[in-house]
């Protein structure tokens, strides 16, 4: 298909989205990631029955925490697709990129970068 999608995205493979814990969703933001999205199988198609539903619940839970602490829950999103659905994968990546561009940089990253560059944020 040779589809293209935004290069800013780093893919982390997991055996099933059910493996993704709330902590896995929090840590990237703590390290400065601007956004995180979880791509699972279509609802009802999980090989382990409920893996993607667990991921969905954890994404919702983490979004609330991110909203509470001012990072913004919209930076985290769950998508579902079939494993052979390349066009949707590329579309989700574009969609997420647009969402993050609209949200602006993660405020944590701004602080971390200032510190790295010898800023006086401390």
């Amino acid at each position, binding site marked *: 298909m040779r589809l293209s999608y935004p290069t800013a995205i780093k893919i982390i493979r997991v055996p099933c989205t059910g493996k993704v*814990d*709330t*902590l896995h969703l*929090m*840590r990237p*933001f*703590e390290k400065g990631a601007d956004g995180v999205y979880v791509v699972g199988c279509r609802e009802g198609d999980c090989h382990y029955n409920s893996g993607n539903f667990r991921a969905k619940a954890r994404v919702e839970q983490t979004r609330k*925490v991110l909203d*509470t*602490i*001012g*990072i913004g829950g919209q930076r985290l999103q769950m998508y579902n697709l079939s494993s052979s659905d390349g066009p949707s994968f590329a579309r989700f990546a574009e969609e997420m990129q647009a969402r993050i561009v609209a949200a602006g940089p993660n*405020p*944590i990253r701004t*602080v*971390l970068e200032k510190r790295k560059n010898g800023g006086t*944020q*401390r």
Partner: protein
Amino acid sequence: MIVAEKKPIEEIIDTVKDCQSILVLGCNECVTVCEAGGKKEVGLLASALRMHFLQQGRDVNIGERTLERQCDHEYLEEIRDIIDLYETVVSIACGVGVQFTAEKYQTKPVYPGVNTLFMGANEARGVWSERCQGCGQCLLAVSGGICPVSRCAKRILNGPCGGSSGGKCEIHKDVPCGWQLIIDRLKALGRMDDYEKITPIKDWSSDRAGGPRKVVREDLKL
């Protein structure tokens, strides 16, 4: 197990907003099972606090530790060597753990990170419900294994009351009538004769009415 639920992060942030270093202390027992105060929740709360303070440009040292239990001296001793690295402790164990930690480390402020609710069972994924109130004088032998103290809103020992309708309690349509459950269970056991027996007035002195309770086992003392 003891069932607790997480306090809202806003409330915890407000409590520790002026602190410079915080130890988030979890417990591997009941609160881990009810997903309110175990190792994962310690990580989640610590991460949220870190991000909150980082956004303000503040360098607050947030430590994470989860003990086997916070209600035993032996396990609480494990943090003696690190406790002084922190200005304050947020304990996400049950109220027992919070208090025992505070008692052990007298000069360290210890704040609760969960609301401790009741002794209950895990009915289904994400659902916990009360089963025992620790009244100190168990009646389960005469009530078919269903507790009238914890399952009946009025703690009636010879029920049901007039508020029982269609198997539900009058306090809420989703609350089963404890006495309906008892009767159903006695029927299933073929022990409806027991239902006719009048349970005498209960001695509530072993409940909270007698003040803070204590068990002393001379046979176990060293």
